[in-house]
């Protein structure tokens, strides 16, 4: 049998392979020459796309995807009698507040009210063991069994004792609690519920709901003791958290961001929007941001800097408003910090959000809120199957509109592609070296330098080990982030300088760069490729986090590398270190909250920053500190 290898070794001009080879060479050359421009183009497109996200053109009006929901299709029966009942609950609660009642006394009172309504009720005590001592609390809850079905499914209505005002700053949610109690009495009268109704009055802010939801779903954690629940029901599908801190309200705000950036299904939010507008006649806000046409509109910062003609322009105002909504969303989602106690439920596959009655002098109160919640519960009650999976990916720039995934995801992915291409270029660059050739006579006469490209080897193992070491170095960084500020900053400085010191030793690895690629090129290549992968993988899990990473890392990494100029190099390294550790400085009070979230709620933001984000920048610092060999 004759052997036939289908590669041919031929001269460049040989007839068969010539044109194809030429095309390939031309393509290679073109890719190499135009590459820097392509990178800049991708970066510009990516960053511009980020800036365009608030534009009206990228979003569209909301619609209801699940036909079974039928929002606002029922007559509501909540009336002034129920409002009166809520008022009397409120005055009792106020009495408890004024007498400085302990949480046990409060839950006893609440539980007693459920008993009076003949709804099965129970109390759950819990303890959180924090660094500053234990936090005790107790939740009251009641389960109204569905008169029509077996109780395999349930809807949750909750109110926390502390309102979400100022992230649980101590404002009481008395009217929210009163609403839930009064709703329990009201909903008990009807036999149309196809799902069990669970009423939870949780203690504290996040702690109570964390203890309750963990116990309900059989989760334990070492720093929390939560009593097991005596009453349980089936799987919870939807949950409404009612937060009503003022004495009346003009708008209802929705808070929907959950732990680790999880979002509820958009259909639930859309239904609430429709019901609130049509049934209750209350305009809906995203978070508590008023819109520009409202009296409560506060001039957002960027607009007040602009000349007044621009600042008063409708489109500019509109853009600023939508941008502010999105930024607010990013601050919650990127940090993975729940914007209300509903955020603890998404991990259990529950579509939950908080209805926040934005404090105002009027005109709405218990009467409107009760009708809206009643109608929303009827809509939840209609659900026959899980809401569709495609409705979990959205941005809400404005009430009543949303941006779909195809319109926002590419912004982060394009930037990550630019980073990826820079990394690949570094890899190619590492594989070849330019060698001057003793010029021929004609060449010397023309005075042109003749060079040729030679291959060199790319030992990857060392670079991979260095990268792994920087990520391992993130573990001490995590422990440092749990310390109080002064020692924390000191230890941070030590860790960062250890990176600069390490680069002294890494610099010694390079030997003959004619034969072996310099270490900085390999390191840079892997650093960039890894960063790009992290951004694209995160983008489907938590878009805000991916966007923040893309914006922060895009330009700094794409243009990283050693420089010959000492001053530039030092400035660059300083800038990188700053970019790495600004989260930890007291000015950005992010890490304390993030560490708390990780320890008690399981939010992964702080380990992510310590073990992925900072090490990626450290790698860039090492690259920038190495000697610029080519």
């Amino acid at each position, binding site marked *: 049998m004759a052997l036939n290898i289908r590669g041919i070794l031929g001269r460049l001009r040989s007839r068969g392979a010539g044109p194809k080879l030429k095309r390939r060479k031309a393509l290679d050359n073109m890719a190499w020459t135009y590459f820097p421009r392509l990178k800049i183009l991708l970066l510009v497109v990516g960053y511009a796309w980020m800036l365009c996200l608030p534009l009206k053109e990228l979003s569209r009006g909301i619609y209801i995807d699940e036909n079974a929901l039928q929002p606002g299709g029922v007559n509501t029966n909540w009336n002034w009698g129920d409002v009166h009942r809520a008022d009397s609950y409120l005055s009792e609660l106020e009495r408890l507040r004024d007498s400085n009642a302990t949480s046990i006394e409060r839950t006893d009172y609440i539980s007693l009210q459920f008993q009076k309504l003949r709804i099965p009720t129970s109390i759950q005590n819990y303890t959180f063991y924090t660094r500053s001592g234990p936090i005790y609390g107790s939740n009251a809850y009641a389960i109204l069994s569905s008169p029509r079905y077996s109780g395999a499914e349930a809807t949750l209505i909750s109110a926390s004792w502390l309102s979400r005002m100022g992230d649980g700053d101590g404002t009481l949610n008395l009217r929210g609690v009163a609403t839930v109690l009064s709703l329990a009495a009201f909903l008990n009268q009807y036999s149309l519920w196809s799902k069990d109704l669970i009423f939870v009055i949780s203690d504290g802010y996040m702690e109570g709901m964390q203890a309750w939801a963990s116990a309900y779903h059989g989760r334990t954690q070492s720093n929390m003791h939560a009593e097991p629940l005596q009453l349980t029901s089936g799987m919870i599908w939807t949950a409404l958290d009612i937060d009503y801190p003022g004495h009346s309200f003009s708008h209802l705000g929705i808070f929907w961001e959950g732990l680790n950036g999880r979002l509820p299904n958009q259909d639930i939010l859309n239904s609430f929007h429709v019901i609130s507008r049509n049934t209750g006649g209350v305009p809906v806000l995203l978070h508590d941001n008023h819109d520009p046409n409202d009296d409560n509109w506060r001039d957002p910062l960027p607009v007040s800097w602009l000349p007044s003609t621009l600042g008063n322009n409708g489109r500019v105002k509109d853009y600023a408003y939508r941008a502010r909504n999105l930024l607010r969303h990013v601050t919650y989602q990127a940090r993975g910090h729940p914007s209300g106690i509903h955020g603890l439920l998404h991990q259990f596959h529950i579509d939950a959000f908080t209805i926040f009655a934005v404090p105002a002098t009027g005109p709405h109160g218990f009467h409107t809120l009760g009708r809206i919640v009643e109608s929303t519960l009827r809509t939840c009650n209609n659900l026959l199957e899980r809401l569709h999976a495609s409705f*979990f990916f959205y941005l809400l720039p404005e009430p009543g509109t949303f941006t779909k995934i195809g319109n926002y995801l590419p912004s982060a992915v394009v930037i990550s592609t630019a980073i990826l291409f820079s990394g690949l270029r570094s890899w190619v660059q590492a594989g070849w070296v330019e060698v001057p050739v003793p010029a021929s006579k004609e060449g010397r006469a023309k005075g042109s330098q003749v060079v040729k490209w030679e291959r060199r080897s790319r030992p990857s193992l060392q670079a991979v080990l260095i990268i792994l070491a920087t990520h391992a170095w993130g573990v001490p960084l995590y422990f440092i982030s749990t310390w109080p500020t002064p020692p924390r900053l000191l230890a941070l400085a030590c860790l960062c300088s250890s990176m600069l010191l390490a680069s002294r030793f890494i610099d010694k690895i390079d030997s003959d760069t004619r034969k072996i690629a310099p270490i900085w090129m390999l390191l840079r290549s892997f650093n960039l490729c890894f960063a790009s992968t992290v951004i694209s993988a995160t983008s*489907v899990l938590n878009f805000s986090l991916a966007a923040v990473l893309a914006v922060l890392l895009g330009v700094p990494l794409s243009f990283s590398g050693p420089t010959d100029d000492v001053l530039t190099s030092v400035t660059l390294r300083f800038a990188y270190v700053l970019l790495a550790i600004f989260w930890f400085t007291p000015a950005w009070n992010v890490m304390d909250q993030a560490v708390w979230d990780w320890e008690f709620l399981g939010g992964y933001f702080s380990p992510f920053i310590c073990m992925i984000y900072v090490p990626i920048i450290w790698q860039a610092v090492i690259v920038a500190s190495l000697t610029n060999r080519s």
Partner: protein
Amino acid sequence: MDINFAFGGLVAARLLLSFVPLPDQLKYDHLLSSPLTSNLRLHEGIYLFKNGVDPYSGGVFYQSPLYLSIFSTLLPLNRVSSPIIWTLIDAVSAYALVQTWRARSGVGKSNRDALLAAVYLFNPYLFLPSLAFSTSSISNMLHLLSIMFAARRKTSPALFCLAALVHVSLSSTLLVLPVIILLLGQPKSSLANPKPISIDFEKGRMIGLEFLAHFAVLTLTSTFISGGFQWLWQTWFVELSLPDLTPNPGLWWYFFTEMFDHFRPFFLVAFSVHLLIYIAPVCIKFQYDPLYAAFILTGVLGTVKAYPTLSDPGLFFTMISLFPEILPYLRYPIVTSLIHLHASLLLPLFNHLWLSQGTGNANFFYASTLVFGVANGAALMDCVWAGLRIALGETKEGYEVVQQ
């Protein structure tokens, strides 16, 4: 460092790792065990078997009767024995890999041995399924053992391991031809200087017959153990008829969840025959280096077989270390590695989005298995290219290699 010492150290580290209290979740992971290799189903089958119920009468147990007999008598599975057994299986596989390397390179002990063992024992695609006690570790062991014995010209052990391999995983039929050629030829690398080989067909026929004899013995034993022929339909035929559409990282399951029933037989045949068409071209092309042909076919199995887990492509990637001579000729190793990096992040992520978090659906996970398929395909194509390209040697000044 002494290889025995290093090997012992690696195995001990691996054993320690398998005793780390891992969440049982690992056993349920779709990426680590398929319905054909799941440890949970094995336990179920053993339970039924011990209680006198035919494990093949339901739709739960799809594994060989040999596993039933071995794990219900000789090696009972429990919390202590399972980690030890699976570590030993991996140790034997790593040993087989090292021995194959020695046979191929023609040297005795070398520094590379420890590296090879580590590449097997600590390849995440291999040790994660092993921590989930997936029986794919056993088929990987048989796979490497048959190649090792063939490389060392131990005809009968090689054929026995091969017969056992085909018995527990029918799609490994792809390996039969290259292993037989390897028994007739030699394991040394001749990628760089290919020449036609002369095959002693008479001897080949004898080897083929011996293989069939081993295979027949195993088949009869299985029939005897399970007391009937029902197991044939519930093990081998399952790989052809795909009754269980539990998601896995392969390319088959999603197609057949979407397919109308009346097209099913046609596409089942197309998918199965598709696997077979690779045997002849690869074995003819790489006849001068049958070990390389076996390696390429391992890659084909890892990419397009019926119920793959991570350990199938994992075996292919570990086997690359047997052929260090091809590494400089790979065209796009970093691209392949990057696609793999993406796939290995996306696969668990999308599986989680779909099945735990509920915010994605099957299409998400399917998309990530496609990325994984592209990554495996890219690696396979590049290895075929490099294996052929190496014969042309270093390019000379002013010359280029093109594919026509």
